[in-house]
């Protein structure tokens, strides 16, 4: 009954009177990762409400890390129990798919989130103000920037510890997003993880107006894309008479049984399918940051507090690509000949667009934003391979990419001057002289972004390009290689700036971070090098996880 659960509920109501609603059959154990994180988020809200201000920071940090670790343990337990391979199935009455990609992506999201939470909790970068340690977030979000109220809040040492539960809610949504097995769950998960992100974007302590502007832009464009997605869902429902992935796939394949009489008129109407599918794809490509739906990326990446940017750039991308993979491989494989040409075009403009526009950037966060667009293109090249290797290469790339990203943004938080982070590139001149270690670490991340061998960036890029070539997209590989060459130029430019330029007299200083950020950066470096030199174990993991349940 699970496959058509929503649909049958609807028809019974229409048929006249509710006889009996069966108690939903939920596999709580298999949903444990999501439930743990969501539960911890609710607990976090209670902590905000009831704990004294002084105690909140430590309580929230502890709760978040423990919850994420516990959820990761649950994912590992599920994977060890064979839910990724032999026991993969559809749970929660058709709403959630528990299979290899789900578990792999959930694991990646959770690990990346732990690292991101470390950067959220950093309080050593700025000097203490009024005897209080301060973090990257506004003292009081409701205080108008520059007002007396804000000054009072700073003086009183307020901190926005709500960021931890907000992040946890976002993570919970992201865990569901790639696992969603019907369109409604997909949409709800999208909203659950997007709304906290909009808020988080607005919470920067410095440059608050820019941060708020970023949040508004993100929210408006995000709402717009949600509307597209929702409209697409409605059209697909009209087409298939169901929001369940399996059901839609059946209708697409033409193997459907028992057509509902009320929907017989529109069912199987290809116009609905094509337009609906395209609208849903748009919604997902927006989240992924693919050209031409990328406009929000640079502004939001620049304006958001840097730890949030890192979190968004890594975890959101993982979740969104997971959902995109499932949609294309489970719902629309029958439409392959329709979506592949479109996706080809998207991949090409994304790779080239991101790489070319990045050249002109002068702000390190904007530069990383455009670089993330180019990388979205590389990942999409693996997505459209439409082979099992395509899935596993994308999974591997996402894992490799997220740690490089969080690490890189964590380094960005360290380089500071009087106005907070010194993100203008000219200020990074000569950083290699002032603090060789920080510059060297950032160079490692940049080289990984550029895809230089012996870093995780190369292994990932090789995997997706190989999958694309095997899947008959050799021309895409050539374009990808050209885009990589262009991209290499601006990564190298930053390295030149750091190592070969004379330091400026009033250059920024490099803050000495606490163990939290150090750990985040350290994990990033280790993952980058291990996945570059000995990726075999993780490739195995990704290829075992490469099968979707239908």
């Amino acid at each position, binding site marked *: 009954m699970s496959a058509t659960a929503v649909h049958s509920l609807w028809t019974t109501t229409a048929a006249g009177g509710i006889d009996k609603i069966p108690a939903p059959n939920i596999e709580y154990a298999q949903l444990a990762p999501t439930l743990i994180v969501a539960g911890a988020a609710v607990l976090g809200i209670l902590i905000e409400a009831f704990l004294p201000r002084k105690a909140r920071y430590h309580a929230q940090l502890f709760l978040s890390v423990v919850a994420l670790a516990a959820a990761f343990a649950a994912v590992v337990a599920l994977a060890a129990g064979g839910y990724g391979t032999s026991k993969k199935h559809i749970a929660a009455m058709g709403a959630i798919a528990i299979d290899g990609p789900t578990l792999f992506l959930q694991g990646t999201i959770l690990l990346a989130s732990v690292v991101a939470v470390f950067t959220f909790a950093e309080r050593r970068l700025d000097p203490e103000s009024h005897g209080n340690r301060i973090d990257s977030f506004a003292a009081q979000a409701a205080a108008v920037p520059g007002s007396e109220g804000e000054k009072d809040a700073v003086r009183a040492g307020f901190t926005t510890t709500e960021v931890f539960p907000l992040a946890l809610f976002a993570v919970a949504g992201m865990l569901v997003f790639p696992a969603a097995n019907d369109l409604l769950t997909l949409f709800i998960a999208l909203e659950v993880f997007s709304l906290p992100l909009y808020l988080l974007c607005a919470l920067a302590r410095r440059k608050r107006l820019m941060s708020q502007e970023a949040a508004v832009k993100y929210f408006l464009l995000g709402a717009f894309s949600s509307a597209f997605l929702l409209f697409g869902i409605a059209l697909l429902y009209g087409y298939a008479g169901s929001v369940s992935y399996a059901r839609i796939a059946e209708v697409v394949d033409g193997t459907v049984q028992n057509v509902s009489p009320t929907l017989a008129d529109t069912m199987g109407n290809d116009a609905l399918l094509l337009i609906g599918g395209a609208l849903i794809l748009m919604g997902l490509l927006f989240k992924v940051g693919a050209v031409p739906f990328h406009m929000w990326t640079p502004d939001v990446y620049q304006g958001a507090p840097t730890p949030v940017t890192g979190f968004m750039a890594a975890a959101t991308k993982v979740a969104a690509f997971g959902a995109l993979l499932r949609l294309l491989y489970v719902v629309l494989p029958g439409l392959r000949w329709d979506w592949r040409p479109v996706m080809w075009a998207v991949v090409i403009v994304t790779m080239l667009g991101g790489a070319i526009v990045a050249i002109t950037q002068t702000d390190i966060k904007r530069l990383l934003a455009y670089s993330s667009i180019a990388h979205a293109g590389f990942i999409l090249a693996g997505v459209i391979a439409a082979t099992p290797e395509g899935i596993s290469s994308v999974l591997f790339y996402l894992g490799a990419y997220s740690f490089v990203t969080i690490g890189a943004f964590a380094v960005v938080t360290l380089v500071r001057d009087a106005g907070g982070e010194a993100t203008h590139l000219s200020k990074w001149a000569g950083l290699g*002289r002032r603090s060789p270690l920080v510059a060297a670490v950032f160079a490692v991340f940049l080289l990984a972004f550029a895809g230089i061998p*012996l870093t995780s960036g190369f292994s990932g890029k090789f995997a997706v*390009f*190989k999958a694309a070539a095997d899947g008959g997209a050799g021309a895409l590989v*050539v374009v990808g*290689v050209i885009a990589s060459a262009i991209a290499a130029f601006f990564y190298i430019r930053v390295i*030149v700036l750091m190592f*070969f330029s*004379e330091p400026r007299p009033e250059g920024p200083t490099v803050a000495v971070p606490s163990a939290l950020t150090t750990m985040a950066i350290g994990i990033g470096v280790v993952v980058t090098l291990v996945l570059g030199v000995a*990726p075999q174990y993780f490739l195995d993991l990704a290829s075992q996880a490469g099968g979707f349940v239908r």
Partner: protein
Amino acid sequence: MSFPLLTATAALPALGAIATAAVPAARRTAAKWLALVFSLATLVLAALVVVRFEPGGARYQITESHAWISDFGVRYELGVDGIGVALLALTALLIPFVILAGWHDADPLEDTRPNRRWRPTQGFFALILMVEAMVILSFEATDVFLFYILFEAMLIPMYFLIGGFGDRAHAGGDEAAATQRSYAAVKFLLYNLVGGLIMLAAVIGLYTVAGTFSLSEIAEARANGSLSIATGTERWLFLGFFFAFAVKAPLWPLHTWLPNAMGESTAPVAVLITAVVDKVGTFAMLRFCLQLFPEASKWATPAILVLALISIVYGALLAVGQRDMKRLIAYASISHFGFIIMGIFAMTSQGQSGATLYMVNHGISTAALMLVAGFLITRRGSRLIADYGGVQKVAPVLAGTFLIGGLATLSLPGLSPFVSEFLVLVGTFSRYPVVGIIATIGIVLAALYVLVLYQRTMTGPVKAEVRAMPDLSVRELVVVAPLIALLLFLGVYPKPLTEIVNPAVEHTLSDVQQTDPKPEVEAAP
């Protein structure tokens, strides 16, 4: 399991690099000695490789094979043939001299001490050893993917060597020089990175066609007919590989990064570029282009020979016109690389043995000339030829060694480059007489640029700035004397080298199914 000699030969300098980098800032001299000791120990291991290598034995010897990334079909496979042994030995031999010649090149200036963590000296020597490790491993790799990784990865330390360390005279915060230098470094990196990325597309293409990266497996599949590559595909893949190697080698018109890179870097780094790293490009043409894509190699031969000829003549002409002595040597190298590539694609045994010998001899002769030029530049603080004059009256030993280096560069009989140049020309002439004849223009021009360089700098009236110039120090003599001795020895008695190289060349020729052309005129009775 036997001792992994080849891995050790590459791992030792890599370890040395880490150890050198870890030396504290104050112990600069210790770092230098550590680097030197590691490079000498590597030389000992390389000598062991030469001893254990049997010229008449299997094609690839001292092999190692381990699983690495099975998802990509990649194995860690090493093995050397005669060509690899010769170049491995050259690399291991040159690095101690490079280190010794660059002894003071990376000392921090007294007035700039911004930070106790800033350790340029340690970094300089660590990077040199890192390059050595990667180059040696790339000569040993018999897996295309492994080779590709090293081919790309060695750019990074090289890039920092070029961009981070300039000539002493310019190092004191001279903005213009620093800008020039970082321009040169970026140009070097971008050219080579683009070449490498295009090769990456070809590497992936090769895998989709062959399903493996192992040279031996591909050769086997070819032999038993289970693998046949369509002509069009083979040509595209060949072009992808060749492009990367032609950038590295460098071949006209992809050569423009070399004069910048060699001009702006210090003399030891310039030697590292032209005598060591660039050899990977020509080596890879022999090992990968010819072996993997024999048909396409034959198809492309005419075009490549034309490009090589242009390199020979164009490089030599531009060398004649240079006012900067390091750029002069760089253009001379472009001309010499033209000879090497011509020898490889002449597809005759003399041509290819000659090309391999040429790689070795060019390494030694350029090292001698460039390092002496570096000593000269350090003394006067200028790279311009016009700033010198009459040096032989002030510093006769320096002038003498400079002359010998120069004569080796113009392939004077009796010095080793003559042997290889002669072989290349003979080998080319027997198949492509016209090409051979045009190439001799390069020899004539070489005499011109070398002798004019010598005449302008060393002879004539002694210039005022040169008057107090000291002659070569003991350290500098230790660098130059062995190189000159080697040039003389291999010039008179090249047999040890040819014995190692010849069987490997025969193998390569049989890959492309070429035999030497028969002499058209019977020898007179």
